[in-house]
């Protein structure tokens, strides 16, 4: 089998490539050039940088496999970065990694896999694919602290049939051990934390530069509309945020709503953040159809635990009712449905429901 391995220059995809090779497959390494500065060069800081491509190239050379850099700058800008900005401008908290997986990595690159003469696409994601009798299943990673199944929820049967995630069976520590044992230069490389196109600066600085409207000054009000202060742009706020409000009132206050059109930030008390449910659109199910049992667990943020909830189809959308009220559920984030270790599917949170 010929495997196209998406190599980011990190330790996970380095080991993924090495494992495929070890299993006797032919390997072709690629790095996606997704973002560039005004001069057309790759960024020097962040995750898809010249240095990372160089690490990927060096690992590929060490493994003695062909390696190429593929230009996905146009797709990435229109499908991921512009959407990220627009979504923020709508007062949402988007997850660009999910959009990237949906439109670039597991769509454009997956289609390209066969055009490049390969049979499967391999990535260094921490998640597992099971080939069961009734089809493919997507499972959480063995290493719960590194599980990335949340950003892979959009994968369906067709995609899973053509994808391999070899390191989902290993803990991060094991991945690093393997990398060290093989002498891979990326063995000790720190995990990337930032959004790849943002670099060392935080994403708020990025948004201010790329989407100046997000930096419009506005009012901070309470949920009765009383003005409590002003701010320098809705870009600085996320639902559930407590720090950096610049407001001194006795009880802790949180951002409970963002209205970008009027550039207004609404703050409230902890209980104002509680939601009993949410509406989810762009929903897909890994199996191709919704589970028969509506009882699932749902993860509403990348770094949160799945909580019990009930699914119900409402037109083209799905309504999620949490068993107990949840805090800081932000439209734009994904709601991913699980049953135990299995990912059932998910979508993007469109609206939240507060307790009556």
């Amino acid at each position, binding site marked *: 089998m010929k495997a196209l391995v998406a190599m980011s220059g990190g330790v996970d995809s380095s080991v993924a490539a090495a494992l495929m090779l070890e299993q006797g497959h032919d390997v*072709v390494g690629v*790095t996606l*050039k997704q973002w560039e500065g005004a001069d*057309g*060069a*790759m960024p020097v800081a962040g995750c898809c940088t*010249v240095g990372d*491509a160089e690490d990927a*190239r060096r690992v590929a050379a060490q493994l003695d496999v*062909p390696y*190429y*850099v*593929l*230009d996905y700058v146009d797709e990435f800008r229109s499908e991921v970065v512009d959407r990220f900005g627009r979504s923020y401008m709508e007062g949402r908290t988007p997850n660009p990694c999910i959009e990237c997986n949906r439109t670039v990595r597991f769509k454009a690159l997956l289609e*390209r896999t066969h*055009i*490049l*003469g390969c049979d499967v696409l391999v990535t260094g994601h921490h998640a597992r694919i099971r080939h069961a009798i009734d089809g493919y299943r997507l499972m959480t990673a063995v290493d719960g602290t590194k599980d990335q199944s949340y950003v892979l929820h959009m994968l369906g049967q067709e995609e899973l049939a053509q994808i391999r995630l070899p390191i989902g069976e290993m803990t991060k520590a094991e991945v690093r051990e393997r990398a060290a044992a093989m002498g891979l230069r990326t063995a000790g490389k720190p995990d990337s934390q930032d959004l790849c196109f943002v670099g060392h600066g935080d994403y708020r600085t990025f948004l201010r530069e790329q989407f100046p409207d997000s930096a419009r000054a506005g009012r901070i009000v309470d949920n009765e509309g009383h003005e409590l202060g002003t701010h320098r742009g809705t870009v600085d706020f996320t639902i559930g945020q407590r720090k950096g409000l610049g407001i001194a009132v006795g009880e802790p206050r949180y951002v409970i709503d963002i209205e970008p059109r009027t550039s207004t930030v609404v703050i409230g008390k902890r209980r104002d953040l509680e939601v009993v449910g949410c509406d989810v659109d762009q929903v897909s199910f890994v199996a191709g159809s919704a589970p028969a049992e509506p009882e699932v667990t749902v993860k509403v943020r990348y770094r949160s635990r799945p909580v019990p909830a009930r699914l119900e189809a409402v037109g083209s959308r799905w309504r999620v009712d949490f068993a107990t009220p949840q805090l800081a559920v932000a439209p734009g984030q994904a709601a991913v449905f699980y049953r135990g270790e299995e990912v059932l599917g998910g979508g993007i949170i469109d609206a939240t429901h507060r307790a009556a």
Partner: protein
Amino acid sequence: MLYLDHAATTVVRPEVREAMAPYLDQHYGNPSGVHRVSQRAKNAIEEARERAAALLGAARPLEVVFTGGGTESDNLAVAGVALAPGRRRGVVTTTTEHEAVLETARFLQRLGCPVAFVGVDRLGRLEPEDVGAAITADTSVVSVMAANNETGVVHPVARIARTVRAADPDVLVHTDAVQAFLAEDVTVADTGADLISLAAHKLGGPKGVGLLYVRDGVELEPVLHGGGQELGRRSGTHNVAGIVGMVAAMEASVADRPAFRARVGGARDAFEVRLGELIEGIERNAPVSARLPQHAHVRIPGVEAETLLIRLDQAGIAAAAGSACQSGAIEMSHVLKAMGMTETEAAGCVRFSFGWVNQPADGPRAAEMVADVVELLR
């Protein structure tokens, strides 16, 4: 592996390797010293200079300045003249020059020098009158490449030089002949140029060494400052083995030139003919009447060069497209853009370049292999 990227760089000739070897471990001296070890090295580069000058038809050996390669030669020629004391500061060049000239021109522009870029037609051809018309009272140097490194189009440098001199005899003419030297007659008389850039590695010589012919009397502001080697025009310890290798490669190229045109041109022509039979809609991107015999720069509609190059590599054929950025991704070629191609058209262009090692029979064989890959992608 069928290597069809000889325009990027090519195989070092055996006689070059042999000529260089003694200067790595036997005559390893620094030519700038006093003792006998240095004297041998010094003698080697001066002999090389004489031989290079003879090949170029230079009036004096010291018109040859050894450099660290084609890029450095271009920098020294363009910036060296435009920044020379007492000279005018203006530069006239073309939109399809190598980046070594283009970026030097832009650098000078940032320093306040007036710079003009002359455009080309759809096949990359340059009109000598357009170059003449771009000359102003500020113009100090005109830089026009002898042949384009991507498409292989050959420019009428001698005619351009005459046009320039007719417009203003004080304007100097530089030509980057890095790509042309292998197949074209490049001498001072043939080009009419005051400055000529060459690089060794395109000729079957080593990488990292080049030369600049500088007509006697032309003053240059140095680009590299230091110990004052090369009469102060290029500081830095001489790359003795490289210089010896460069001249050996030049001599071999000049001796092989007529045969190269027949042999390698034959391979390229047969390649194109067979490719035309096998791939529908394929187009040449350079004029048949004025191009290097080793270049086949083609557009294959419906195929993306990025994908094609990877599939060709898998099939054992090395080819090129555009220029690779620092990351290794292919970028839109400024040459094709200057020729008026859209981004989509340019993305379907690939350069196959043959080299001194190729035989006519390599052409049809390569065409079959390329066509098989294109077939897969269409």
